[in-house]
């Protein structure tokens, strides 16, 4: 097929030296993932077993509070739980009983570990097992850790999805599983594209409700839609499913490459592929080219945050004409990020981990036209005259596949256009 993307003439970044740093990391912990996961899985409840800090993070992280009665809460550990005065497992049972009595609509309950629960070694796996027996089969209880000592921001989703894999039923059926929480509208677009290619047995992880069928086995192949699903990837391999490595479906090129990988696996012929993708490809190219006008020739600097940095840098470099200066990612996993690194034109510094003050010094020295960073850094950098794009919006906004390619470029171009539009210099 002719749909494989052309590698950059000057070589890619897969073998480029990586600057590994350890120091202060300006990132969220994995609990943040609950903010979008609880919207995706509408019969799931996330009970964080943690401290007041965890509760405070959850209500602050999204920048706004979601005031429908949320499907998450924190069981806040108190002095008595820590001093061993009370049996934490008994306490947890009591809280879960209360919660499930109040919310009979809950079909899946996730016990979410936090830094304090990890440090005091509160065994949530044991609790989940016990509670599954008490409250099953109507409620399934699972556990995962969203603690900052073990997970970075989007790794919370990874830990959550990975916790579901071992309990999936076994199947021998030939099927495709698409992994990663996507907004329903985007997921439907993707299913329509795959359906058009003639691939009908497609399942999604996570499923929208607990009742939706999903099983896994040796004839399962899977594709990832998010670049932060390393643990889930490993868990699926342990169930003998096979990974289809591909660039991530951001932008026209990424989406085409992602679909082409799957099409090749399922023996889809070039005509069918063209018939299904030509029109949306043309639309996506047109939308990106319009939305990226303000980005062409501009430089971009990525602080590590969402774990989407490498694929996004590839999109900005190849489809929007930007020049990445540094591409920082919390961690790099060759099996997942290799295909995107192959396509990212050599040149930028690839960095893994963070020492935030040192990295800020590099950004200030480079004076990039656009800096992609977390919410804690955005306004301070703007005040220094650097244009920023805050990264959390990339996780909260539909950005995947053809129809969102223009929106994705728009997320980056808006701050650039805005700075040009505002006539008055800010006082500070």
């Amino acid at each position, binding site marked *: 097929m002719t749909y494989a993307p052309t590698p950059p003439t000057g070589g890619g970044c897969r073998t480029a030296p990586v600057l590994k740093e350890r*120091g*202060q*990391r*300006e*990132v*969220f*912990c*994995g609990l*943040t993932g609950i903010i979008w996961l609880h919207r995706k899985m509408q019969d799931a409840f996330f009970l964080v*077993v943690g*401290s*007041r*800090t965890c*509760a*405070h*993070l959850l*209500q*602050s*992280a999204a*920048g706004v*509070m979601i*005031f429908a*009665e*949320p499907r998450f*809460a*924190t*069981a*806040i550990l*108190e*002095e008595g*739980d*820590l001093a061993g005065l*009370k049996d*934490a497992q008994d*306490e*947890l049972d*009591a*809280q879960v009983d*209360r*919660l499930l009595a109040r919310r009979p609509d809950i079909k899946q309950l996730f016990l979410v570990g936090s*830094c*304090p629960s*990890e*440090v*005091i070694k509160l065994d949530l796996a044991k609790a989940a097992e016990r509670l599954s027996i008490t409250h099953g089969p109507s409620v399934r209880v699972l556990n995962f850790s969203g*603690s*900052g*000592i*073990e997970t*970075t921001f989007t790794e919370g989703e990874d830990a959550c999805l990975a916790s579901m894999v071992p309990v999936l039923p076994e199947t021998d059926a030939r099927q495709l599983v698409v992994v990663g929480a996507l907004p329903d509208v985007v997921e439907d677009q993707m299913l329509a594209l795959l359906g058009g290619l003639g691939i009908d047995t497609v399942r999604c992880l996570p499923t929208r409700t607990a009742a939706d069928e999903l099983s896994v086995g040796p004839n399962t192949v899977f594709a990832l839609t998010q670049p932060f699903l390393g643990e889930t990837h490993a868990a699926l391999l342990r169930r003998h499913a096979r990974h289809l490595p591909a660039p991530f479906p951001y932008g026209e090129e990424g989406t085409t490459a992602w679909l082409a990988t799957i099409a090749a696996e399922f023996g889809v012929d070039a005509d069918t592929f063209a018939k299904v993708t030509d029109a949306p490809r043309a639309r996506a190219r047109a939308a990106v080219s319009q939305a990226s006008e303000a980005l062409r020739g501009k430089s971009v600097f990525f602080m590590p945050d969402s774990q989407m940095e490498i694929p996004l840098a590839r999109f900005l470099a190849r489809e929007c004409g930007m020049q990445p200066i540094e591409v920082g990612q919390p961690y790099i996993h060759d099996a997942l990020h290799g295909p995107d690194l192959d396509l990212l034109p050599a040149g930028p510094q690839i960095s893994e981990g963070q020492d935030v*003050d040192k990295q800020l010094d590099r950004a200030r020295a480079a004076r990039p036209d656009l800096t992609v960073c*977390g*919410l*804690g*850094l*955005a*306004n*301070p950098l703007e*005040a220094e005259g650097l244009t920023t794009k805050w990264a959390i919006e990339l996780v909260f906004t539909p950005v995947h596949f053809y129809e969102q390619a223009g929106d994705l470029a728009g997320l980056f171009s808006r701050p650039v256009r805005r700075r040009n539009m505002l006539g008055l210099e800010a006082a*500070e």
Partner: protein
Amino acid sequence: MKLSVWTYEGPPHVGAMRVATGMKGLHYVLHAPQGDTYADLLFTMIERRNHRPPVSYTTFQARDLGADTAHLFKDACQDAVDRFKPQAIIVGASCTAELIQDDPAGLAETMGFDIPVIPLELPSYQRKENFGCDETFFQIVRHLAKPMERTARVTCNLIGPTGLGFRHRDDIEELTGLLSDMGIDVNVCAPMGATPADIARMGAAHFNVLMYPETAESAARWMERELDQPYTKIVPIGAGATRDFIAEVAAITGKSALIDESRLRQPWYAASVDSTYLTGKRVFLFGDGTHVKAAARIARDEMGFEVCGMGCFNREMARDIRKTAKDYGVEALITDDYLEVEEAIERLQPEMILGTQMERHIGKRLGIPCAVISAPVHVQDFPARYSPQMGFEGANVIFDTWVHPLVMGLEEHLLHMFREDFEFHDDAGASHHGGQAKPRVVEGDQSPTPAASPLEFSDQKNADDNVIWLDDAERELKKIPFFVRGKARRNTENFATERGLAEISVDTLYEAKAHFAR
């Protein structure tokens, strides 16, 4: 373990951050796991600060726990001192670091810095954000402030304002102006805007103005004892409290309490006939103790409302609020459980809530107007315009803020008169709030009726099981405008229950109306 959906206060180390971020030349080295840096965005996003908070986090991870986290802490301290060159550092642990017991205080003290190192002990599993502010500021003052010669002119310190405080920025300006009108200068304002060097010269002031007991009462008491500085007990929120505050300051300083009040418009605005409609509106108050106590006085004595319930989320103020509530003939609700507050509001059916951003959402759900009087803060609580709560301008601002959510006087009458009008009906809400106009569904129309408002659901849930509303009465009740319907339902049911009536007819409704007429 305590199940928590939403919290009114963060953990105590966030309180310490509020003090550090308000100050200049101070750095906070916080032993904390990866992820606790989320707290930075409270300041950079909600408060729109243009600098990162002066906090270095050790951001340890699981792999560090097996090795040497103490080493990480010492490195972070050294890096912070080298890079930021602070005049002093405060050191402490967040909730997780507290568990691993690295003793940040002891570690930092052995490092031989030539600047003051102030250790913080903030018990994360017992206390909360306001305690964190109060304790941190107290420790800073205790370590740095010394008795010294008083200034020649009469001066005071303004104490209590912090980063991320509810209108602290503007309250400082308003009080500085007010005190200046009395001939009193501000020696130091702290924590907000002060450096450690400024803290060291706080002893030169003649007295302290305790702006927010939540964040600075411990420091005020210490300075009274050690520096012989009296402090003000009245928080000048509201016209009456501002006048009392002026009298209190005059008594401390011997200055004249006669100052120009021409900027104060609130008393006339409340007295002018347009405000008649505010009379006896039932309001529910919730927030931090200081703001609730002040708001109660304004509500009853300066706006002519009826206080039908009050409470606070900070237990430190429980005694004070219980006492205040008693004076107002209501029971105090002391809780940090959002669901309990919601339940109380549903039960009391106030016509307006004076609360926090959390109660704003309760109000939205129940269809009750709400004005915000207290932290926890939201990006909207940092308006671009000058918008204090304290002093004369604060009283003006509060009048505007509280009146805004209500349906205004003449509009209220028109809604009563023309309640059958297809556009100008009560489901459309207050006309100055935008929103979408909802045409009235004409009776007999086959189109589906709109879903009952949450208020109506909650009404039904609360209705006494022994009292049945007859259809006619139920229809009549629907004709009563939404902003008084809850009260009418409640009053009528109470009226029926008291008289042992099993059914409510149209007559019962109007008998109850006559009974409760005021």
